[in-house]
């Protein structure tokens, strides 16, 4: 019989080491075979599997939104496995997913409120800490006005948490000083969707993977960032011969697993996308019927700036154009012209265009941070939509553009609830009808909701630095690791002019500068709802008790709101507040265009996709065949726009704000690794993951390393005009940047690469570009 670990009689230390050894191997396997399952091992590590109570929910980590089952025994989470009933992951999980609950018991878990007194943190009863937060917030408003207080939330906050944050700030206090970390990862996707379709979020769903002939990934290392979806793509590759084309600035695990890897010079994706459209137009591959009946053409302003200065503002001025003008614009983007500066060969541009242009091939385009964290993020989103609109490859099974999200509820909370300065749960603050609806549901006077947006993420922390914001409360986010140019914003948050409240599960560099630290409940220690990349809303019930005085964020907001005198607006009960809040929130989205599944359905099923109409998820929006909200007889109806037509945008190539020069000769690209979740505050406390990837590194192209005589592991100082960071060199290991470029992952708070990055952003979406700035490198 096969030996098993659980049968071994070992001392606990040896047993632990054997488990670590097995887990390290699983981690390695997971990076080679995304989505790999070792079910036997999962079950085997589970004490008395028969007695476990398996509770369903979504994964805590990425925007894929895999369904998980958490095995609970004696009130403790002892195992995690993939939910076989979830159509997202069909029982698969990635290495982060399997080990997620291991962080809860970390020794330095925040279990009680901490209040800074005379420079040291003092353990304080939660009620007292909440009294202090409420009184400070009130005091600040009284002395400096309501726009002196701000809240910065998260795409990891649950839907009820985001909703209550918005209601407190916009409905009760009456300020639009609410933004969230999703601004850093998918704001360009939102503005891309809104400018092209007038409605946010992808039209398709993950089932597209089962139908597509080609997957084209735009600057998107899915093998590490969306591993379960990538493994579904690999399955289709081996089963049906579907092809994966990786279009990126760096060779990654996704590139090596793809059928073709095409590399481009940073920022020139704009030009290549236009060149693909040039080919489509000039080879007669346009789906004329589709374009004539369902599209308009527009252009916007050009030379739109980069947001580098404080109080930068920009408003686009769209202007309708015709097909002839658009065709003429494309003359600047012949493959021959674009090949000269994009470093993509004419042959490869034509190859990509021919895939999109072939009427018999179904194509899905995927992207995430590569296109969104871009000083022309809105434009590049528009340009990829252009390709799909020109060819009519959209809103059909296996055909469509699909922007993926990084966080588990970037869609559900940040985008749908709208925890951005300009947003309301339905629509935007600038729209009177939207304000009226919010005022009605929130039972507040409409005048209380201000009609002007205030600070987006970067500008919010600039306002802290300037002293304009005097109170800030952050939840489930770690801006002092994740913001660009932390070299400015860390000292800003340390200033006495701003009272800082941080609500989190673990200490972070952000909580290090807080005046009050609030101990938050982790994911499964509270009930909640997340919304993933495919518009799927998923509910979970509280599974275990949190330690000490840990409290769900939504409940902390409610307690503070009551202390500030807004009790009548927050009449929820402690036991049932999640349900009560969700039922209130659902009213915002009633109707065929965004109706959300009722809670009873979400409790039973592994999520449902909105619009949820007549008991059914809508998998492909804007296509009459699948979407009941479309006008009858329209075929396709982009109903986000008043005339039902999507917009094909004329958007040019414009260079990045900072490009390599003599003094700073390298591009710096930053990103993530499979083992760690964003800033690592959770995954660095999971021994298996931390052991597999214990620290950050700076990746070189071997030719650059050779020219600089840099050896693997040697300490290198990476310096920009903003700051510097020292990291070990990595050559030919995880990834391979193009020549003239270095790559650094940002998960490591001990190697703060964001001290080096630039806080330039897309003037339309206000999303910073973490992928491009100029640096020099030298031996440390």
């Amino acid at each position: 019989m096969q030996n098993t670990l659980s049968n071994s009689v070992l001392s606990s230390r040896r047993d632990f080491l054997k488990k670590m050894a097995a887990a390290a191997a699983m981690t390695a396997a997971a990076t080679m075979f995304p989505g790999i399952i070792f079910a036997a091992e999962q079950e085997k590590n589970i004490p008395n599997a028969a007695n476990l109570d398996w509770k369903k929910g979504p994964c805590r980590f990425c925007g894929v939104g895999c369904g998980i089952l958490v095995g609970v025994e004696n009130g403790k989470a002892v195992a995690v496995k993939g939910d076989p009933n979830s159509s997202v992951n069909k029982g698969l999980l990635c290495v982060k997913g399997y080990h997620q609950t291991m962080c809860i018991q970390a020794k330095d878990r925040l279990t009680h409120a901490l209040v800074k007194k005379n420079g040291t943190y003092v353990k304080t009863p939660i009620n007292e800490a909440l009294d202090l937060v409420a009184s400070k917030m009130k005091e600040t408003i009284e002395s400096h006005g309501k726009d002196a207080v701000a809240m910065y939330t998260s795409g990891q906050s649950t839907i009820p948490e985001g909703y209550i944050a918005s209601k407190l700030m916009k409905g009760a206090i009456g300020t639009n000083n609410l933004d969230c970390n999703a601004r850093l990862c998918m704001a360009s996707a939102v503005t891309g969707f809104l400018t092209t379709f007038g409605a946010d979020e992808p039209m398709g769903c993950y089932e597209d993977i089962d139908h597509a002939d080609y997957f084209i990934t735009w600057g998107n290392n899915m093998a590490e960032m969306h591993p379960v979806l990538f493994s579904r793509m690999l399955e289709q590759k081996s089963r049906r011969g579907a092809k994966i084309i990786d279009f990126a600035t760096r060779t990654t695990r996704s590139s090596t697993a793809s059928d073709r890897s095409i590399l481009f010079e940073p920022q020139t994706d704009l030009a290549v996308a236009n060149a693909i459209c040039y080919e489509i137009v000039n080879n007669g591959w346009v789906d004329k019927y589709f374009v004539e009946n369902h599209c308009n053409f527009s252009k916007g302003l050009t030379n739109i700036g980069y947001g580098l200065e404080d109080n930068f503002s920009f408003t686009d001025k769209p202007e309708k154009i015709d097909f002839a003008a658009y065709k003429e614009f494309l003359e600047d983007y012949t493959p021959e012209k674009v090949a000269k500066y994009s470093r993509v060969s004419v042959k490869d541009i034509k190859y990509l265009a021919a895939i999109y242009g072939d009427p018999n091939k179904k194509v899905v385009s995927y992207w995430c941070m590569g296109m969104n964290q871009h000083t022309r993020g809105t434009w590049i989103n528009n340009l990829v939509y252009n390709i799909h609109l020109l060819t009519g490859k959209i809103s059909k099974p296996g055909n469509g553009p699909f922007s993926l999200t990084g966080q588990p509820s970037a869609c559900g909370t940040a985008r749908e609830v709208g925890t951005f300065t300009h947003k309301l749960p339905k629509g935007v603050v600038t729209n009177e009808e939207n304000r009226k609806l919010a005022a009605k549901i929130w039972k507040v006077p409409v005048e209380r909701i201000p009609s002007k947006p205030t600070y987006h993420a970067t500008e919010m922390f600039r306002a802290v630095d300037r002293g304009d914001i005097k109170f800030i409360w952050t939840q489930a986010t770690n801006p002092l690791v994740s913001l660009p140019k932390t070299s400015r914003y860390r000292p800003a948050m340390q200033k006495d002019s701003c009272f800082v409240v941080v609500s989190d599960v673990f200490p972070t560099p952000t909580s290090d500068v807080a005046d009050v630290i609030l101990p938050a409940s982790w994911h499964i220690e509270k009930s909640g709802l997340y919304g993933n990349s495919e518009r799927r809303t998923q509910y979970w019930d509280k599974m275990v008790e949190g330690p000490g005085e840990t409290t769900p964020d939504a409940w902390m907001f409610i307690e503070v709101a009551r202390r500030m005198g807004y009790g009548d607006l927050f009449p929820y009960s402690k036991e049932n507040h999640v349900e009560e809040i969700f039922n209130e929130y659902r009213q915002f989205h009633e109707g065929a265009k965004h109706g959300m599944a009722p809670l009873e359905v979400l409790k039973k099923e592994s999520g449902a996709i909105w619009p949820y109409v007549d008991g059914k998820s809508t998998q492909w929006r804007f296509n009459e065949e699948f979407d009941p909200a479309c006008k009858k007889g329209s075929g396709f109806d982009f109903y986000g726009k008043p005339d039902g037509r999507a917009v094909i945008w004329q958007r040019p190539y414009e260079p990045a704000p900072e490009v390599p020069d003599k003094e700073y000769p390298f591009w710096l690209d930053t990103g993530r690794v499979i083992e760690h979740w964003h800033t690592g505050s959770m995954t660095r406390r999971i021994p298996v993951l931390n052991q597999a990837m214990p620290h950050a590194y700076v990746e070189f192209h071997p030719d650059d390393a050779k020219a600089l005589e840099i050896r693997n592991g040697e300490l290198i100082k990476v310096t920009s005009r903003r700051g510097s960071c020292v990291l070990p060199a990595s050559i030919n290991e995880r990834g391979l940047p193009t020549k003239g470029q270095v790559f650094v992952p940002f998960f490591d708070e001990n190697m703060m690469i964001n001290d080096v990055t630039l806080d330039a952003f897309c003037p339309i979406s206000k999303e910073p570009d973490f992928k491009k700035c100029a640096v020099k490198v030298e031996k440390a």
Partner: protein
Amino acid sequence: MPIKSYLAHPYDGKKDDLVIALSQISKCDVIPAENNDVLIIVTETDTLKEDEQLKETIEAIDSLKLLAMVSGFDTPKNN
């Protein structure tokens, strides 16, 4: 007392054979992947010499295409 883990890749269609062959070997635990042709092997031996011998034994299995070590620990005997 060395503890090591490996990824073991079988020849095409030989995954089951490899699992059976490995399960005959003592001081060697096997965790097959459910949905891919790869196995995890965790070995635990008393001495470095025994560890080397065990590795040679595993490498001699016909159905094994590739054995890649992932991690290794060495602990005092009485721990």
